[in-house]
């Protein structure tokens, strides 16, 4: 498997792993058929300027190395960001931040930014 060192590092030492009790927003994306399922938990608060920010974010992922690494990287990228900023992050940016992914992994396992957006939508609907 041709993963970058960064992918392997995020796979072996995932950041922001786990659950948040009573999250403000949550979402699950993926499909058991493909083998990848990601769950994202958000804790939302306001910064000094009064904007809503992601104060804490956690993930749980059943999936391959790329699925785990992208989940972990995406959570790191949005932590502390405003909801509007976080909402703009794309799967492509997550992959780039990890030093790239093998082409076959770009579609099936690179879903973390989608999961973040869905969790933000989930919060906004509440």
């Amino acid at each position, binding site marked *: *498997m041709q993963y970058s060192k960064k992918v392997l590092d995020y796979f072996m030492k995932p950041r922001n*792993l786990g659950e948040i009790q009573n999250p403000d927003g949550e979402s699950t994306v993926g499909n058991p058929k493909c083998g990848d399922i990601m769950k994202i938990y958000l804790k939302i608060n306001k910064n000094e300027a009064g904007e809503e920010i992601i104060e804490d974010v956690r993930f749980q992922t059943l999936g391959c190395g790329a699925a*785990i690494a992208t989940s972990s990287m995406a959570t790191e990228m949005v932590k502390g960001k405003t909801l509007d900023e976080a909402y703009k992050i794309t799967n492509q940016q997550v992959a780039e931040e990890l030093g790239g992914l093998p082409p076959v992994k770009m579609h099936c396992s690179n879903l973390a930014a989608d999961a973040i957006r869905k969790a933000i939508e989930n919060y906004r609907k509440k």
Partner: protein
Amino acid sequence: MFKQIYLDYAATTPTDKGILEKMMPYFSQDFGNPSSVHNLGQRAMMAVDESREKVAKILKCSPTEIIFTSGATESNNLAIRGAVSHYYATNGKNAPKPHFISSTIEHHCVLDTLKSLFKSDLIELTFLPVNNEGLVNIDKLKEMIQENTIFVSVMYVNNEIGTIQPIEEIGKLIKELNSIRQNKIIFHTDAVQAINYLNCDIQKLGVDFLSFSAHKFYGPKGAGVLYIKKGTPIKVIQTGGAQEFKLRAGTHNVPAIVGLGEAIEQIRNNNFEKIEELRDYLVERILKEIPASYLNGHREKRSPNNANFRFDNIEGEGLLLSLDMEGVYASTGSACSSGSLDPSHVLLALGLKHEQAHGSLRLTLGKHTTKEDIDFTIDKIKEIVARLREISGNVLKEFDPKK
């Protein structure tokens, strides 16, 4: 040095050093083309024929029934396409389509070949299902055989789950049927995973075609065999020379064929009991020490070197990747490792759900495997499964497709 533990012997084996030494002179010294008339060519031909005799001795057949190929994929293509080609050459291109049967868990080199002939509208095709342990049912096979059936292909040992099929019984059934049939049925078995461990006496098996590769039993890559029982209808598919009794054109891969002959001669010296004992120890400990772990395939009717597990709430590629980083080399039926989106067709044929098939791990042992290797591997699998389960939490159980 970084410790490496190779547990992927069903994928390929290292070429034995002694075998490699026997191959070496045929690269630069006795390098002649066996089709050449001069002395150098004839020396190479003698080496090829010596290997042919060694193979015939193990299969208990005549050397003239042995065709050397580049490997089992080619052998299986020749057997299947060669039978179709002969059928239309004999019966005319407007003849009614012949009917082929194969199991659902054949290797892709058999399945894809059959499917491509089916798509080209050249054959009728029926797949023989397996039960949840990976065994075909002979009564079902009997029911599937039609008047126009001319070919049955069932692999001897499955490459993923190691299940041993009742080849001898199928051979008997087909022989019985053939004694009163006008359309004789050709019985083919892909014996790639069997040749190293099981009896491949073709008299006993009752097969017409049998294929295997040298690299699965400590020989080199690039050489294989198709056994063709004398009189079995087949037509050449690779043309351009009179090699191999006019059934396989192309210059012989002499060094690899020499290696194949050496490897098959040593087959019975390999110590299977030790491998089987280690495999049983591995299976017992994994199933006992890891919760929600299961063995795929049949407990007893399986190749002595094969263990195939699945773990709930685990995706196989992550497991493989983590083992790889510990220097343990294994294999999985998960889609993520294969480049396709679907998990192993073999595991799905057992009735497993996609998410179960994704969580599989195949460990195949060989003659260099030690108890220390197995103990180290078990310890690592335990750690890795626990770690990956911590990462996956309950997401599978909580997954709601409607959301």
